[in-house]
């Protein structure tokens, strides 16, 4: 940083840099502790066996796996399976839909394109929750609520996913159009351009879309609660575990909630960390291109 300075200034800069770096290290360590503390606490508390309610200390007095044993003898296994099925189905279908939408809007120039994009922008300004009231009654008539909430939820998540095309459209916009044109000159149809040329190049955004689509159902609360409507067999983990923390249940289920949190977070976190690179690419690209 300071190669072309006079020696005296050089020393001063170096010393001040050392001080500022030390301050930054202290701040970063502090930040890391704050960000990790809840997760360390939740892991530690999941191994606490002396009591099942909230306590004012972190490190358990007696360690054991009781909470995990109890967890797998509760409805949790059912909720976990529900959420997993939903997440896989949504990841597959939503990715296809989002890619169709974003690729088309990025590459084709058809008559209603601008109007369509503006229309979807306006549509997105309505709170999505408003649609739940009607969707619940319609799905109920179709027999896809309560105990059979899983197909209903998949349908609800997937159906409107075309509106979330922004990030991947931004990615497709960066692939040079000359590639398409060259292939078209060589006699490829539009469909062949997509499958043979664009898709192999779009691997990062495909993985990003799959990853975000897979992760969303694990945290969804509103729609899942609406559609399962109090029936345990149709709940996902978020709705089911939320009930463990209400006033009546928290004293006997708090530590089980912690254990459940660990079981839910672990696979998702590992998957996320493995594919982190693609996520970062998607998020930064999406924000810059708006």
């Amino acid at each position, binding site marked *: 940083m300071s190669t072309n300075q006079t020696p005296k200034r050089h020393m001063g800069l170096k010393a001040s840099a050392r001080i500022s770096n030390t301050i930054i290290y202290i701040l970063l360590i502090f930040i890391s502790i704050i960000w990790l503390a809840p*997760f360390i606490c939740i892991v530690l508390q999941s191994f606490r066996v002396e009591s099942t309610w909230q306590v004012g200390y972190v490190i358990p007095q007696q360690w054991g796996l009781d909470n995990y044993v109890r967890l797998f003898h509760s409805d949790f296994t059912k909720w976990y399976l529900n959420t997993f099925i939903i997440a896989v189905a949504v990841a597959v279908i939503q990715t296809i839909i989002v890619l169709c939408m974003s690729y*088309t809007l990025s590459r084709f120039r058809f008559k209603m394109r601008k109007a369509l994009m503006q229309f979807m922008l306006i549509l997105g300004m309505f*709170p999505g929750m408003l649609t739940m009231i009607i969707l619940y009654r319609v799905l109920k008539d179709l027999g896809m609520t309560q105990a059979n909430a899983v197909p209903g939820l998949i349908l609800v998540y997937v159906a409107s996913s075309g509106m979330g095309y922004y990030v991947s459209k931004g990615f497709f*916009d960066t692939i040079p159009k000359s590639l398409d044109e060259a292939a078209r000159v060589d006699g490829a149809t539009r469909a062949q351009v997509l499958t043979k040329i664009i898709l192999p190049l779009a691997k990062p955004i495909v993985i990003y879309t799959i990853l975000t689509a897979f992760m969303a159902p694990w*945290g969804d609360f509103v729609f899942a609660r609406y559609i399962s409507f109090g029936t345990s067999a149709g709940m996902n983990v978020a709705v089911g575990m939320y009930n463990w923390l209400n006033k009546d249940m928290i004293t006997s289920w708090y530590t089980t909630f912690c254990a459940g949190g660990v079981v839910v977070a672990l696979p998702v976190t590992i998957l996320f960390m493995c594919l*982190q690179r693609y996520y*970062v690419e998607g*998020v*930064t690209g999406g924000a*810059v291109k708006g």
Partner: protein
Amino acid sequence: MKKYSDLEYLRLSKGQKFTYGLASFFASIPVFFKNLFLGIGRFFKNLFVGIGKEFADLGSTFAKGDWKTKISYVIMGFGNMARGQWLRGLLFLAFEAVFIMYMVVAGGYWLSMLPSLGKVGPGEVYNEVLDTYVYQYNDNSFKILLYGVLTIFFIIAFIYTWRMNVKQNKIAEEILATGKPLKSGKDDLKSLVDDQFHKTLLALPLTGILIFTVLPIVFMILVAFTNYDGTHDGYYSNLFTWVGLQNFNTLLNWSSGNNVYAATFGEILTWTLIWAFFATFTNYFLGMFVAMMINKKGIKLKKVWRTILVMTIAIPQFISLLYVSKMFSKNGIVNGLFLSLGWIKEAIPFWDSPTLARIMVIVINIWIGIPYLMLIVTGILMNIPADLYESSRIDGANAWQQFTKITLPYMLFITGPYLLTQFTGNMNNFNVIYLLTGGAPTNAAASSAAGTAGYTDLLITWLFKITTGAEAQYYLASVVGIMVFVVVAVISLIVYNVLPSIKNEEDFQ
């Protein structure tokens, strides 16, 4: 207001520049609304002119067309079939047949019931065979409204298809007049993976959006003009019916003295805007700060710091938020820790005092939001040309000046649209509020009928509470939803028009 030229502007002092900027901003607001209304006027003018042209074209096509074209006005697809385009013709004909059948069998009934939303409610009817009164369900307001809207959609689709059918005849005649052959069914199918590939790709996503977003939104907007709620569910309890603007009056009329709904709405709207402002900008600046610390030259273990923050994104929000909310409860870990350290004598009621609870949700939202901002800012910081910093350093700028003169303007320019979506996203940030506080502490002044609003409730969580509350006032929820839309739309419109650059999307390609 006096307008300065660039040269005159540069001569102004700092204070004058600021007042000038402020004045021109406020002066631009009326201009903006003028342009908005002019734009709306132009839209309707174009619409009516367009419709007029369509009718003129329909007439001239009929007058000039041959007998095949003329029959197509009544029997859709006849012209196509007569000219050998069997596939298109059969599709048109099938659509017409389905439409007519639907209208006769069901559509007519739904349309005729739409103005009243049902005439006979459920009630007891004398049954002669059983010699007793039986409870019987009759009209279904919910279905009438839903299928009524669907039928209108269907009619619009039919008119559009019919118009397309006429246009095709005209085009076919023109092509035949030049002596070229028409496209065969095989060509049509082939074009679906080639020239018309976008139609194939968009078919599925747009159908989903139409059925699961557009239709429900139209339905819910209409519900705002009815009295649909838990006791008027339209089938099992009572029918519901149109009530005009009454619900808007309930929610928005402050003048009628102690209107508890209007007061609650005003309070929640104010808090929603305050929350969105702080949630957006605290995250933005602190996130930028953290990113700059990690990216500073000479800081080691960059990957470790980044990974620690990114990991918190991976963990589903309902776990982290619910857990953090319990950490700060009266008998939670934080109070326990502070008590055992002797810092406090009594547990701090983090979630019981309105002000403290509001501060807490903003602070915890920082904890949630910084990792995302850190990622985004890191990406942008790497794109700022390094020689800008280099030359400013030679000119003697210190780190603070570099930040305010280079980094911040660059960031604001690039992330302007992102900040807007963050702001509107935070207005509708259901998860953070609902999972942390559930809207608590309860606002005693608010109506207990409308889902017991609390001090940290946003409009969106209030909406949820209304629909799941004891009285389930769906009509009130949909008015609140429409208001959310209006607020978001107005803010977006103004910001987009004030932002320095509306980026041209073609620039990226």
